């Protein structure tokens, strides 16, 4: 590790941090936004520059931040020659694109958004090329798919933009999924997920049985990303993006990610028959096909897009050859393609920007009107054609040289001829770009009056054009060292093969092929018009139609499956769920052994037997009488009561108290809700269905009952001896259940009250939404009057509840205070106090009571959670973990001694939350009642004997 290694993670994270900037800076204007967007890129570039000398000396810089080393997960980065080349391209092009986009985007485009997406994409791309861990690489890989989706679909109003973005995401995302599989296999073979380790194990990997599956999966990922045949179709459709995006993603970076991966994996995966035939053939086909289609495209950007497809095919083919010389040629061509293609895209963007059309057939003669743009475009297009003195020539010669020596399936002619054909077509479309757009007579029917754009817009392509010429003339001086170090990284160390970056190699096979290509290309261009007519009428498969058909078929299939399984019959899902659970339980039952029963049964006293009969009968009645909803509710109450009694008998006083108070509150709520619901359930399900449900119910009940019986007869060793032993010393209370709640398992309880609070708030929110929609109208029109008692607030009840309120509150406080040592506590006290309030509301109406209430229920829930949370956090001040309790004892006169400590405060939080949640639920129901036309009483009772005159009929407003 060198000293500069800590810079690597910073470089990786900088664009992501920088992505926050444009959104803020856009308020300061467009120029400020663009300038500040450039800063993180510039910083990263400077840091890369700091690291560059070491890399150029042949060092590999590594940095690792461990996360889950057991799983091979770590944020590890490394920078070698290949990474340096790509990182430099990504950041350098990023700067140029930032500048270009500042002038390209119009005032209506949200520029801040654009730069944010751009930086996110840049960060993802950068992550791919400097990741050491392949899992990390995969994450960045998927991130490029996502961020490029945002960039391609940047013009949201254009349907082509949206469709193109979706198609790109579908294709590259699917490829990414395949690659995840391939990478995992690779990591498994190598026993490490670090690229630096994997790269050492080429022989083991190639010898593995899993080599072919891994290779195919990884290639699918790389080919989809780099738009190789037959996945090439997404790239032209992605041209709906703004031109800066096309120039950045589709010439310099994203589509090169696949090529990068091929290059990165070259030492490990290449050198086999499978690699040669799959990769080289795919590349060759893509190169020729892309160039052929490009020749007949009238849209400038489509032409460039297919040319890019063709050049990516060329790169893939070179890497596929598997020779070191071809790999070096590929590295060199990556640099050259970047320079001329990005400049060409930007020139096309300028033409589009100035003339408002990209249709070649409507252009021509622009060299007179836009001389600067024309010069840039001509220089770079000549390079694309592979003309001498431009950089495209050099790498094309190397490509032809490599192709000339390649034997494909026994034929020494196949590859050279196809490569020459590709070069020929490339000459033809490049010259078409030059001649049909910039030469010829000046026309007078351009959609807009063209002229050269401001300096800022042509600066970036001009700089690239300068590079095109410089590299073309002095290749060894300008990029020689970089090609050497990056090429060395691709071929995985060892001796570099003999190659020389110079213009004149003498008359060799490559030169002859070049001459043939040039002559043939010019002839083809001369024949373009008749050929074009022929091409237009020739039948050819339209990739978008096929793709859309596939997507529609897949969507149709999943819709059929979903609608078949998910038809909205909830009772059916539940039946399936119950049946599946019972079946699983049965399988488990038959599969496992059962230890003999070792626990004696307790006797059954007659009282308990009576209680059981009551419970069983009440349950049976609820089931049979559930259509009469009021009666069913009353019976539910009976069951709850029996359960409370059972808890008392079975040494669970806290549970009994909780159950009985919860029971009361639940029944009250259900009664209130039933006020608005139908009072009867109609008989709907046929007998067969009821029989099926009955069988299911009996099976489930029998199974659960048997399970309960089985474990009740067997002893076990509980962990609660610890709780019993430490309750007093550690938790300061003798009621072990309460100490567990507020101390041992306080964190559970804390979560629990939060859930309860959320339930209360959700109920409130639900009611609020309900009363805002059409439901409010329906409620207003509903007639609930026939259910209403004439004496809704009876005198006896009002007086009785008033008298009971202080007593009930007193009981609540008492239960709360003694909770730590005797049965009771915050939960129960909260429920008891809510019942005390509920009674007031029942007696005098909610609104009347509400007006006399000072604290809001939302506040109560909030404060409850906050108090409990702060109490827990207080332990941090003492340097102890969350919710460690501290306590002392207090003796108030007349009450038994109770512990006062942090647990007490925590319990207070529980108390407040429970109270708030219950009351908020009630409040929500009463709001609905108000909407349903219930009147608000001003007086506490309807007939008040103390106000003889005028009391009658003052119940309503």
């Amino acid at each position: 590790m060198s000293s500069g290694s800590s810079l690597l993670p910073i470089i990786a994270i900088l664009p992501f941090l920088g992505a926050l900037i444009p959104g803020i800076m856009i308020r300061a204007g467009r120029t400020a936004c663009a300038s500040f967007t450039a800063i993180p890129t510039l910083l990263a570039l400077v840091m890369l520059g700091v690291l560059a000398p070491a890399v150029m000396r042949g060092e590999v810089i590594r940095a690792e931040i461990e996360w889950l080393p057991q799983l091979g997960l770590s944020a590890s980065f490394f920078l070698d020659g290949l990474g340096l080349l790509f990182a430099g391209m990504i950041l350098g092009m990023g700067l140029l694109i930032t500048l270009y986009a500042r002038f390209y985007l119009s005032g209506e485009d949200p520029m801040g958004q654009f730069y944010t997406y751009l930086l996110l994409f840049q960060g993802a791309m950068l992550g791919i090329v400097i990741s050491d861990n392949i899992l990390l690489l995969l994450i960045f890989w998927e991130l490029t798919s996502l961020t490029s989706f945002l960039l391609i679909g940047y013009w949201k109003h254009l349907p082509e933009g949206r469709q193109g973005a979706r198609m790109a995401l579908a294709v590259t995302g699917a490829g990414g999924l395949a690659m995840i599989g391939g990478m995992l296999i690779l990591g498994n073979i190598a026993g490490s997920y670090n690229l630096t380790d994997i790269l050492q194990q080429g022989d083991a990997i190639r010898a593995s049985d899993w080599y072919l599956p891994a290779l195919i999966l990884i290639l699918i990922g790389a080919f989809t990303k780099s738009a190789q045949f037959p996945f090439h179709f997404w790239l032209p459709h992605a041209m709906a993006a703004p031109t800066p995006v096309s120039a950045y993603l589709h010439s310099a970076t994203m589509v090169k990610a696949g090529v990068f991966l091929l290059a990165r994996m070259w030492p490990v995966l290449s050198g086999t028959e499978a690699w040669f035939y799959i990769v080289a053939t795919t590349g060759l086909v893509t190169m020729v096909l892309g160039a052929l289609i490009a020749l007949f495209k009238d849209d400038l950007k489509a032409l460039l897009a297919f040319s890019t497809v063709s050049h990516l095919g060329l790169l893939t083919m070179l890497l596929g050859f598997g020779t070191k010389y071809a790999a070096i040629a590929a590295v060199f061509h990556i640099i050259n393609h970047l320079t001329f293609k990005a400049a060409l895209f930007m020139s096309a963007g300028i033409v589009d920007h100035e003339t408002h059309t990209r249709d070649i057939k409507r252009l021509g003669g622009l060299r007179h009107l836009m001389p600067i743009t024309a010069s840039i475009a001509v220089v770079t297009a000549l390079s694309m054609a592979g003309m001498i003195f431009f950089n495209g020539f050099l790498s094309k010669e190397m490509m032809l040289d490599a192709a000339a020596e390649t034997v494909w399936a026994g034929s020494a002619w196949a590859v050279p001829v196809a490569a020459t054909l590709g070069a020929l077509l490339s000459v033809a479309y490049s010259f078409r770009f030059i001649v049909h757009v910039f030469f010829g007579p000046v026309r007078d029917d351009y959609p807009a009056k063209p002229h050269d754009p401001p300096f800022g817009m042509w600066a970036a392509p001009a700089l690239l054009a300068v590079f095109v010429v410089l590299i073309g003339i002095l290749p060894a001086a300008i990029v020689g060292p970089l090609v050497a170090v990056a090429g060395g990284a691709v071929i995985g160390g060892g001796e570099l093969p003999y190659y020389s970056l110079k213009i004149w190699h003498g008359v060799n096979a490559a030169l002859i092929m070049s001459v043939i290509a040039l002559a043939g290309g010019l002839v083809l261009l001369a024949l373009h018009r008749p050929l074009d007519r022929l091409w237009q009428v020739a039948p050819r498969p339209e990739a978008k139609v096929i793709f859309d058909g596939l997507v529609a078929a897949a969507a149709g299939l999943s819709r059929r499956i979903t609608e078949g399984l998910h038809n909205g019959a909830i009772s059916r899902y539940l039946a399936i769920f119950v049946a599946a659970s019972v079946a699983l339980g049965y399988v488990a039952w038959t599969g496992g052994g059962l230890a003999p029963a070792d626990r004696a049964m307790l006797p059954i006293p007659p009282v308990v037997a009576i209680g059981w009969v009551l419970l069983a009968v009440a349950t049976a009645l609820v089931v049979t009488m559930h259509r009469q909803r009021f009666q069913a509710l009353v019976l539910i109450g009976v069951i709850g009561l029996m359960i409370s009694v059972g808890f008392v008998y079975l040494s669970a006083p806290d549970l009994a108290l909780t159950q009985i108070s919860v029971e009361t509150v639940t029944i009250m709520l259900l009664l209130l809700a039933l006020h608005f619901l139908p009072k009867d359930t109609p008989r709907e399900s046929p007998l067969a269905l009821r029989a099926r449900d009955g069988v299911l119910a009996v099976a489930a009940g029998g199974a659960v009952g048997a399970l309960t019986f089985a474990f009740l007869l067997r002893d076990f060793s509980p962990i609660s001896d610890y709780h019993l032993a430490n309750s007093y010393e550690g938790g300061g209370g003798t009621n072990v259940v309460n100490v567990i709640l507020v101390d041992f398992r306080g964190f559970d309880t804390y979560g629990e009250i939060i859930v309860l609070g959320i339930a209360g708030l959700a109920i409130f929110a639900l009611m609020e939404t309900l009363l805002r929609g059409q439901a409010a109208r329906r409620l207003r029109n509903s007639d609930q009057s026939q259910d209403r008692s004439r004496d809704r607030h009876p005198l006896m009840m009002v007086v009785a509840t008033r008298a009971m309120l202080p007593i009930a509150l007193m009981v609540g406080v008492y239960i709360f205070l003694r909770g730590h040592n005797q049965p009771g506590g915050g939960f129960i006290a909260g429920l008891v106090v809510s019942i005390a309030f509920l009674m007031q509301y029942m007696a005098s109406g909610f609104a009347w009571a509400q007006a006399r209430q000072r604290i809001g229920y939302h506040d109560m829930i909030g404060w409850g959670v906050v108090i409990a949370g702060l109490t827990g956090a207080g332990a941090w001040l003492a340097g102890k973990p969350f919710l460690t309790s501290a306590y002392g004892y207090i003796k108030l006169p007349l009450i038994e001694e109770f512990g006062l400590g942090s647990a007490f405060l925590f319990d207070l939080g529980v108390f407040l939350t429970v109270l708030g949640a219950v009351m908020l639920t009630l409040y929500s129901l009463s709001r609905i009642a108000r909407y349903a036309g219930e009147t608000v009483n001003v007086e506490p009772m309807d007939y008040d004997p103390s106000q003889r005159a005028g009391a009658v009929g003052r119940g309503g407003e």
Partner: protein
Amino acid sequence: MELIVASSVGVLTAGGVYLVLRLRAFPVILGLALLSYAANIFLFASGRLRINAPPVLQKYGEAVYTDPLPQALTLTAIVIAFGMTALLVMVALGAFIEAGDDRIDMTEADDAGKAVRKDGAA
């Protein structure tokens, strides 16, 4: 006694399952209430049964205590079951007021209605 508790759990589960499989919201809520009773008793019983041994520490003598941990868990379960029941009741009520009936199954008409509304919004 064990038989009593186990059969209670069984009876409550059976009743709960049957009611949950009904077609209207209210019986389903009743069914869930029965099921939560059954679940609470089940959870409580996992600490095994003991009489006259509440887990409240005694000052004098060698007292026997029942297992307090399942009790604590059951206590919170009871309260949470209440919260969930209340929420469900509210959802059912809202659905009834919105739709005019308290069927739980979605019908074709529900889907169609949604589609129409979506088109209208677009």
